[in-house]
């Protein structure tokens, strides 16, 4: 088993060099003429407002809705992780095999239903 993953490891080295190579090539070929205007942050042609604190100028306050979706995602992602070993379990096709996963899923569907009823899934 480990020999297969050794090849994956070798592949990982190749995968890291693969995107770096064109970047290096482009570095050799491309023109380099930076100007102040060229390097300004893109703002639809308007000059960037609020120059003072460098990082603050472009900061956007995001809505908590993003985090709500992230939590929901984490919970269901873990469920998925349990689905896969269950799907290949050696005692497939018994009644209990289905029932156990059904209970597991129904409890999590409860979570989804809760979020739905509390209108947490609404992207306003």
């Amino acid at each position, binding site marked *: 088993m*480990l*020999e297969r993953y050794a090849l994956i490891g070798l592949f990982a080295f190749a995968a890291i060099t693969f995107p770096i190579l064109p970047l290096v090539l482009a570095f050799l070929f491309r023109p380099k003429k930076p100007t102040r205007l060229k390097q300004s942050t893109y703002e639809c042609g308007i000059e960037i407002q609020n120059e003072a604190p460098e990082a603050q100028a472009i900061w956007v306050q995001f809505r*908590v809705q993003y985090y709500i979706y992230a*939590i929901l995602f*984490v*919970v269901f992602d*873990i469920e998925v*992780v*349990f689905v896969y070993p269950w799907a290949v379990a050696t005692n497939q096709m018994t009644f209990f095999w289905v029932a156990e996963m059904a209970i597991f899923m129904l409890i999590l569907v409860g979570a989804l239903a809760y979020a739905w009823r509390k209108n947490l899934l609404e992207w306003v």
Partner: protein
Amino acid sequence: MTLHIPLVYYLIVAAALFCIGLFGALARKNAIAVLMGIELMLNAVNINLVAFWRYGSPNPVSNQAGIVFALFVITLAAAEAAVGLALVIAVYRSRDTVNVEEIDLLKW
């Protein structure tokens, strides 16, 4: 191939990772960074669990207690991160800071 590496190596790496995580949890100011330290500690514990499963169990295929345990620890870590970060966001919204030194209302 696995058993070419002594169990002790894994335990030492896990101990070092645990200590790094503990330092993060104790010494960082930012609440999110503290949570990151806790995640590191949980990872270190998982390495230990899996290493003991691999080296300690006479029949690692039919008794995968270590893997199951690590799986549950990962689940717990996810639940902990979700609730912990929700707390951080809630505190941030009411107090406008995520610095754990400033979140000391209970001291008063």
